[in-house]
């Protein structure tokens, strides 16, 4: 039995002993590309669209004015009777939907979230080259559990303001202190004969709406 502090000292001591004779390795190089995509906003959005769809997300384009109707249509198409609403979601987004709204101002329990059919959120940004939307629990996104338990997640992306081409362009725009969730399509598994199946524990369906201002 060792006391916690001495384990810390032991491990660090072993690390230092192991490195006593170790030479300094070659300096870190960063010869990789900052982006693999031409610097053309339209091309970047097209790539985002293509890559999201490739990993089985539904992708839609809409104007700001057409958004409420599109969200209403998507909720209805999936027979969503209840929809979870994160704090700070613009009220207008759900103006054309009949689904019962469950606002998460007093946190819903996991079982309450489980009984809801859908959730609508914004995002922090989207990455075109990987077909990813990133959530950082900001206004209109809510806490992480909201986009995890309901079967349908509708995620709204502002184009071009929230779209970046690549990972090297994405990371500097995020705050490491906030919990972030990177979402590339609906949940999936390849655990059975490496045959990809969508919809395991997370949402079965991801619908991404690209809103052009």
């Amino acid at each position, binding site marked *: 039995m*060792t006391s*916690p502090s001495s*384990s*810390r000292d*032991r*491990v660090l001591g*072993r*690390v230092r*002993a*192991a*490195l006593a*004779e*170790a030479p300094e*390795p*070659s300096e*870190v*190089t*960063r*010869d*990789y*590309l900052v982006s*693999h995509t031409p610097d053309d906003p339209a091309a970047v959005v097209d790539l985002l669209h293509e*890559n999201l769809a490739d*990993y089985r997300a539904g992708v839609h384009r809409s104007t700001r004015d057409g958004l409420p109707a599109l969200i209403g249509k998507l909720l209805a198409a999936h027979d969503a009777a209840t929809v979870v609403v994160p704090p700070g979601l613009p009220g207008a987004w759900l103006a054309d939907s009949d689904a019962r709204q469950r606002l998460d101002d007093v946190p819903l329990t*996991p*079982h309450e979230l*489980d009984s809801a059919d859908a959730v609508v959120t914004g995002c922090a940004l989207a*990455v075109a080259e*990987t*077909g990813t939307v990133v959530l950082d*629990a900001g206004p209109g996104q809510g*806490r*992480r*559990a909201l986009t*995890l338990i309901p079967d349908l997640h509708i995620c709204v992306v502002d184009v071009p303001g929230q779209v970046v081409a690549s*990972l*090297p362009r994405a*990371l500097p725009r995020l705050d*490491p*202190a*906030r*919990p*972030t*969730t*990177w*979402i*590339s399509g*609906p*949940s*999936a*598994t390849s*655990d*059975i*004969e*490496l*045959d990809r199946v969508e*919809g*395991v*524990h*997370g949402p079965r369906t991801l619908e991404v709406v690209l809103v052009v201002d």
Partner: protein
Amino acid sequence: MSGTYLGMPAFPRAARDAVRDTTLRGNLRHATHTIRDKRARAVAELDDWAALREAGKRIKDHTLRHLDRYLVRVEEAVTAAGGTVHWAADAEEANRIVADLVKATGESEVVKVKSMATQETGLNEALEAEGIRAYETDLAELIVQLGKDRPSHILVPAIHRNRGEIRDIFRSEMGEWGRPAPEGLTDTPAELAEAARLHLREKFLRAKVGISGANFMVAETGTLVVVESEGNGRMCLTLPETLISVVGIEKVIPTWRDLEVFLQLLPRSSTAERMNPYTSMWTGTTDGDGPRAFHLVLLDNGRTDTLADEVGRQALRCIRCSACLNVCPVYERAGGHAYGSVYPGPIGAILSPQLRGTGSEIDASLPYASSLCGACYEVCPVAIDIPEVLVHLREKVADQGGAGHRLERAAMRTATWLLDHPAALNAAERLASSTRKLHPKRLPGPGARQWTNSRDLPDLPAEPFRDWWKKNHA
């Protein structure tokens, strides 16, 4: 490492049974060929793959060279963000820390994200002994757990099972652990995944304690990163009140920016995707979002021994992508269980004998479980020269002597003497050539017997080349 693997037979014996199992051979061949081809396509999409690989390698080497500094930094950052950091010198200590933390919550069950580190320490068995039930939630880990089986692959632990076998396990075992499998469950992957969803959903919703590993820890910010596909990771990292992450000390990377390298290298190398469906990043605790208590257990368990070896330490660069398993011709035929460790395949063959030492029969045999074909090195996203380390470890095993190695050493010395005396070598060649009509097709004795079991020996020539040369070119 886990007691499960103590007293495992040496690799060649375990592999012999696997090679003869036609179902297993078919399952492995199908799976590894599928994923290796997909990986090649995913990697080919990026023109700068070689530069990313070099950056990944160098970032890891730099981190390992200054590991003490980065561990202290990650500890400071996690603590400042509301987390608690624990240090575990070995598996036993890690398990005890986790068991005590779970007991302090008053809970008797935990949900787990797939984690190599907790497999390595045998955490589930240790918790079981303390009256705590650990539920694996990754689909493949669930298949392994329900089947009272062992994982055989880093990324897809149930790669040795086909859909029919999985359906049978679900039908017979799910009821023992919770919600039974649906009536009339078929073997389609979609239905099997749905059965797992229903079975685990109730566990996720009531879970109070989650246990995970991590793919990366960022020293600069104290951020932990878990890369996954199914959403079971998000469930375990988000819904419980207490989260305990057990992470090997080699998983630290210096800066937030470094993620731009590894989040490109890892998904394409492992699942052959541009990006895996879900990546979770968290820094300590966050008010009103996710666990209220976060504990990070930093695990040594042989990593510092590995770090001390100037050739072998490169194994600590490993980001557990499993690309080397998927291209390995030996893994493809022997299967994961033959490696007697949670780390199978080429990376296992260099990692296990370093983490555990080469004292046991299985660990002394692992460095030889390779034809040195180099396919693993070619695909490794952090450029671990696995063949180099294998040969280096063979030297260690040969130096310690033991079963067969004394005889082998004598034979090698004799061969070297002969090869260092060309006249004697020439005499031996002539003797062999002149008696060639007398050589049988199958030979007895160690080595020769194994060779002639399945292969003819080459016909000896009438004369060695050096005699031909003397006659024709002197």
